[in-house]
């Protein structure tokens, strides 16, 4: 128990103070949202229909960015070896890292998501739904993102490899999340899409630790 907490606190500190940080993730998300109309034109007729979708893509990208460092730095400076010799299995350590990633990046992004969506012209009434769905999606992003980071350990390609592995796995949460908000925007029920989103996030959390643990063990040679 206390080992879980110890590791969780370390990971949180690393993500918070260094390696990304919620402020920077949110800043990135908001800046990209701000840049979007810049490039595609700012007429509401253009923006409103894509508000939900664009928000989700931005979320996915922002969660992607700090992922690379989740395991790689630990691998390079030998800390991953320490983790392997510690009181937790690598599977548990992987799960703790996922949880920390979600707390430090996913949740703050869930707060930034409604802001981004509103600035693109989303109906303010949909803000709570957007935040909730973003939090759920963030859980999925964190889990499959961490798996991608673990799989690309020790490769020469780093960041972009993580992105390329994670991106297809990010598609379902993006589709379901944006789908839920778009459905609500068009007056139909967001429930089904939300249920799919939740199912995806939970399955990801339940399954990725096993694959992730194996991936780390493999990278240690």
């Amino acid at each position, binding site marked *: 128990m206390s080992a879980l907490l*110890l590791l969780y606190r370390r990971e949180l500190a690393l993500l918070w*103070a*260094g390696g990304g940080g919620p402020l920077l993730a949110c800043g990135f998300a908001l800046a990209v949202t701000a840049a979007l109309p810049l490039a595609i034109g700012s007429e509401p007729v253009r923006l409103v229909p894509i508000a939900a979708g664009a928000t989700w893509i931005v979320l996915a990208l922002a969660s992607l960015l700090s992922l690379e460092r989740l395991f790689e730095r630990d691998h390079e*400076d*030998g800390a991953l*070896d*320490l983790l392997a*010799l*510690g009181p937790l299995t690598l599977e548990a350590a992987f799960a703790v890292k996922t949880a920390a990633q979600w707390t430090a990046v996913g949740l703050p992004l869930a707060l930034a998501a409604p802001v981004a969506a509103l600035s693109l012209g989303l109906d303010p009434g949909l803000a709570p739904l957007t935040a909730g769905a973003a939090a759920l999606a963030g859980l999925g992003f964190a889990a499959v993102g961490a798996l991608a980071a673990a799989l690309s350990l020790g490769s020469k390609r780093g960041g972009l490899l993580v992105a390329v592995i994670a991106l297809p796995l990010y598609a379902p949460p993006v589709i379901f999340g944006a789908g839920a908000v778009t459905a609500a925007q068009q007056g139909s029920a967001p429930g089904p899409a939300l249920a799919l989103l939740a199912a995806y996030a939970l399955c990801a959390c339940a399954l990725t630790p096993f694959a992730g643990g194996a991936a780390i063990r493999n990278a240690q*040679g």
Partner: protein
Amino acid sequence: MDIENGSQMIAALHVSDLSIARGERRLFAGLSFALAAGEAAQLTGANGAGKTSLLRAVAGLLRPDAGEVLFEGADGPLDAGTARSTGVQMLAHQEGFRPGRTARAELDFQARWFGARAEAVTAAARRLDLTPLLDLEVRVLSAGQRRRLALASLVAANRPLWLLDEPLAPLDARRRAQAAGIMAEHLNAGGLILAAVHDPLPVAAREIVVGAAA
């Protein structure tokens, strides 16, 4: 400074008929030795002979080609997984500290991760004269200061089996003497030390030659 954990404690390490290959190359084969509580062994051998690889295999970080690493407790054989997750600590070239964090945060995490209590961490830092350095980033520490930080985590966690990879190289003369004292104390308390070295360990230690000769 007695090593705790009762029956979980590692009382002996048996390496039998171990053989390790990296890439297409076999580093060594048929290496066997045993190490009992209170004993130290130093691995010697040419550069690239496989000392570091052997340490990693004992720690379970490298899968050997053939042969086995067995841990024995006071009451008989221990499960390797349990033994490693409660009884083994390794000091590698790369000490595993994150350069951007403070020495205090890193020592605290590492020592407690390996089971140290908070007072033990403070005591170890004081013992190794690290107290004035604890607020510095690990990045700015000198090579020897960094190594002392790693030694402090060994001392604080006080796990029975220490795997050390050239532990004394970056230390100055005074610190080498101090490290010798720490190792002797660990052995007296029933600990085990397996160290890869180029210069002889400053405690009584059996020599195990790794490589061609093995």
